[in-house]
């Protein structure tokens, strides 16, 4: 109790200090008008012109990934990932339902967190975006030629998949760490026997360099702490991975107090190259488990879900020299590595200081066995021997640090609601700007690579309050754009975001835009129910299952008159878009269908199921305004009573 009071007192004191520094500054900035600066000019992208950067913002509890342009802050697309999206039929049509399969069955929602863009030689290559799902632990891969989710892999032995999904320098691995330690394997046991019995798994998921296909290479079974965030080493520290931990107290209740007692938690430094070698030589233990691996194919336009029944686990004590703990003050959140790979920043969220460790000193401390005890057999390095420096009194509640290409760090402070710029190496604070309000992560394009593009910084805020027109109790989420080319950061723009923008990844548009596909080639469509030749459009009955092989092109369906359907049938509409022209999708929906519309891109095939319930003549139509004769793009299905003998027939343009 005494400790808690001490912390509170010091928090209040520091708040006083910091807010004294900023009080005036804040008021000035809030009123910063477009006329006072050229901010408006800097974010203005003229009609028809393109933004300089893509920004992929996590959709948080929406489960999706949003695509924005910078500096305009315009939303281009919401890519459905972990949640059903009726607009795009994601998780509704027969093709994409398997993408949301898990070992728990079909899960229609997810909590998306940390997008990261694939890299080659430590630089962004713009091929894929990876993003993690916290609640039902999963990692998704989004293909940046189609801007669609190409793959989702479930992470077994994990709960609260939060210290994810960060990629190594050559996208060798995308890494996923568990936030909530759990019994592994799961078993019925008293909750208060957590300490010493629960485990935290750190999963290294390999990525095929050609196809991007993911596979869990190994899971490192760590002590039962909470693994909060992580970052790969890069350049000189490539081969290592760093994870922040909290709740090293291993409390199982009232964590806000009980997990805040230790003066220092740890950053776990994992030499993954060493463990990879161990595993490649047959090391590790295969244990039974169950997890789904879902892959979408752009050839069949269909996803498949495979259940996998075992995973390779590694006990860190079996690989001497592979894992060390770096003491880091006050429940660190973000764990960030500067572009040179030398500095590892622990953002101790209950502290006013930032702790920076040195990779070189860490190696020396390991070499010289400068240990300060061990935790569950894992050596703890001496704090003083790994510390590179401290950014003192930088603000309150540091969460995350990004870097520019000029040797500066930019740290977000949740409690004091600001972004602070500081110098790597001298640890002096150079600038601070308030954000509105309570920033979580920040993002500089390429900030998680060897080569950041230090032009803009996006602050991803947790609280919005009065920044926009009110919309009832629930208001929009918000991001703020700063120009960071000058000595002082300059606030340029507020823009609304979907869900909660936990984290984001940005990339120069020219790396990605040129690879964006315009259509799918019909001739390459390998969907088992595709109708490639319009003459093959038909209706087939198999018992009470009816398969309609339908095509769509401006501005008609083939066939558009169908008779012989009966109440009690299960009717599959397999619809192929025959357009081969850019930006000519067609949609389709049927009155009484208990599912979403389909939105079908040129050359693609999608399927929905309709259960006719009443005799009658029921229309279907195109749901996407496709052409001058879009309103004419419609058709009818005649439904006869069950057991009737209406002949099955179909037609187009017959009288």
């Amino acid at each position: 109790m005494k400790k808690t009071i001490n912390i509170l007192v010091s928090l209040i004191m520091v708040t006083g200090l910091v807010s004294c520094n900023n009080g005036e500054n804040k008021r000035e900035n809030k009123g910063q008008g477009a006329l006072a600066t050229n901010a408006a000019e800097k974010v203005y992208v003229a009609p028809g012109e393109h933004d300089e950067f893509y920004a992929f913002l996590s959709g948080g509890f929406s489960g999706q990934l949003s695509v924005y342009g910078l500096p305009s802050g315009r939303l281009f697309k919401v890519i459905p990932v972990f949640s059903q999206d009726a607009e795009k039929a994601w998780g509704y049509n027969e093709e994409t339902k398997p993408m949301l399969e898990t070992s728990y069955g079909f899960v229609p929602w997810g909590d998306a967190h940390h997008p990261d863009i694939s890299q080659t030689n430590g630089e962004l290559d713009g091929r894929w975006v990876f993003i993690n799902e916290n609640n039902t632990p999963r990692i998704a891969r989004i293909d940046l030629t189609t801007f669609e989710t190409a793959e989702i892999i479930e992470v077994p032995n994990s709960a609260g998949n939060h210290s994810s999904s960060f990629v190594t320098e050559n996208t060798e691995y995308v890494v996923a760490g568990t936030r909530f330690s759990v019994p592994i394997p799961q078993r019925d046991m008293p909750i208060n026997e957590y300490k010493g019995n629960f485990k935290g798994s750190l999963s290294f998921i390999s990525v095929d360099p050609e196809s991007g296909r993911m596979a869990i290479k190994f899971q490192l079974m760590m002590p039962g702490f909470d693994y909060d965030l992580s970052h790969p080493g890069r350049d000189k520290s490539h081969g290592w991975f760093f994870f922040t931990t909290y709740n090293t107290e291993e409390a199982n209740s009232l964590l806000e107090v009980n997990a805040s007692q230790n003066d220092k938690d740890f950053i776990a430094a994992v030499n993954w190259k060493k463990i990879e070698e161990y595993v490649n030589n047959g090391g590790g233990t295969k244990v039974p488990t169950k997890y789904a691996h879902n892959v979408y194919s752009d050839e069949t336009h269909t996803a498949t879900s495979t259940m996998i029944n075992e995973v390779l686990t590694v006990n860190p004590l079996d690989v001497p020299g592979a894992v060390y703990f770096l003491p880091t003050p006050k429940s660190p959140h973000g764990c960030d590595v500067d572009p040179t790979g030398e500095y590892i920043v622990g953002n101790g969220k209950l502290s006013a200081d930032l702790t920076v460790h040195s990779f070189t000193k860490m190696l020396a401390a390991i070499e010289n066995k400068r240990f300060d005890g061990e935790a569950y057999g894992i050596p703890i390095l001496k704090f003083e021997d790994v510390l590179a420096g401290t950014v003192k009194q930088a603000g309150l509640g540091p969460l995350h640090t990004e870097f520019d290409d000029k040797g500066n760090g930019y740290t977000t402070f949740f409690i004091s609601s600001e972004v602070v710029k500081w110098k790597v190496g001298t640890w002096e604070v150079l600038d601070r700007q308030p954000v509105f309000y309570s920033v979580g992560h920040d993002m500089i394009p390429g900030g998680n690579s060897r080569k950041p593009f230090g032009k803009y910084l996006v602050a991803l805020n947790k609280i919005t309050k009065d920044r926009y027109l009110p919309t009832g109790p629930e208001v929009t989420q918000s991001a703020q754009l700063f120009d960071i080319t000058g000595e002082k950061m300059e606030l340029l723009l507020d823009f609304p975001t979907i869900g909660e923008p936990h984290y984001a990844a940005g990339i120069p548009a020219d790396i990605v835009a040129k690879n964006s596909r315009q259509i799918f080639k019909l001739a390459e469509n390998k969907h088992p129910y595709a109708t490639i030749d319009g003459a093959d459009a038909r209706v087939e009955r198999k018992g009470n299952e009816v398969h309609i092989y339908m095509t769509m092109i401006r501005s008609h369906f083939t066939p558009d008159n169908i008779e012989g359907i009966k109440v009690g049938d299960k009717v599959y509409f397999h619809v192929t878009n025959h357009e081969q022209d850019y930006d000519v999708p067609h949609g389709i929906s049927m009155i009484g269908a208990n599912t979403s519309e389909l939105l079908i891109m040129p050359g693609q095939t999608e399927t929905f199921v309709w259960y006719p319930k009443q005799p009658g003549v029921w229309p279907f139509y195109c749901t996407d305004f496709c052409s001058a004769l879009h309103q004419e793009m419609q058709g009818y299905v005649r439904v006869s009573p069950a057991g009737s003998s209406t002949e099955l027939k179909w037609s187009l343009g017959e009288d």
Partner: protein
Amino acid sequence: MKKAGIIMIIGSLLLLGLFKFPLWNIMLGAPQYPDPLGMDIYIEGIQGVDEFDIQNIDGLNHYIGMKTIPKAEDMWEFQVFPLVIGGMAAIGVIIGLLGFFGKVSYKWFLGWFLLMSVLGIMGMYDFNAWLIDYGTNLDPKAIMKLLNPDGSPMTYKPPLMGYQKMLNFDVDSWPATGAYMMFVGMMLTVVAFFVGKGEYKKIEK
């Protein structure tokens, strides 16, 4: 007449560019088509500038009742044109060779040019006749039957050469690489004529 013969041969061979490069190009741009659709007309058939342009032009044209763009086997021209061009190139080369060895007069060069010009004009006439048929011989059940301000049915013949606004489309019709090569080649045969004439005069002196 060595120099003139060589120029004649080069000029004639330039015709062969038509087997590789398009003779004519028609581009169709519209507000919805910032990247215009286009067709390249070769002596052996019509191809889209981009992979699916022909299909997309046909798709749009069906609204106003135009026929689909003919495939190579649908028009006799695409069988005859290659023979004519190949034949004329061969004849030109033979004349050039004979000229080189002084077996024929330089006047043959001009003769070849005049024949080629007549054939070219006939080709243009035929091309224009096809454009008229394509643009005016419309399906009576066309989805959109538009009228000119004077009440006559609107037709859609693309310009033989030049720019024209047609409904929402900006249509540009211009000679393409193959035609320019043929033009330069034909000019060279005229040059060959004059050079040959000069060389002949020198010999006479």
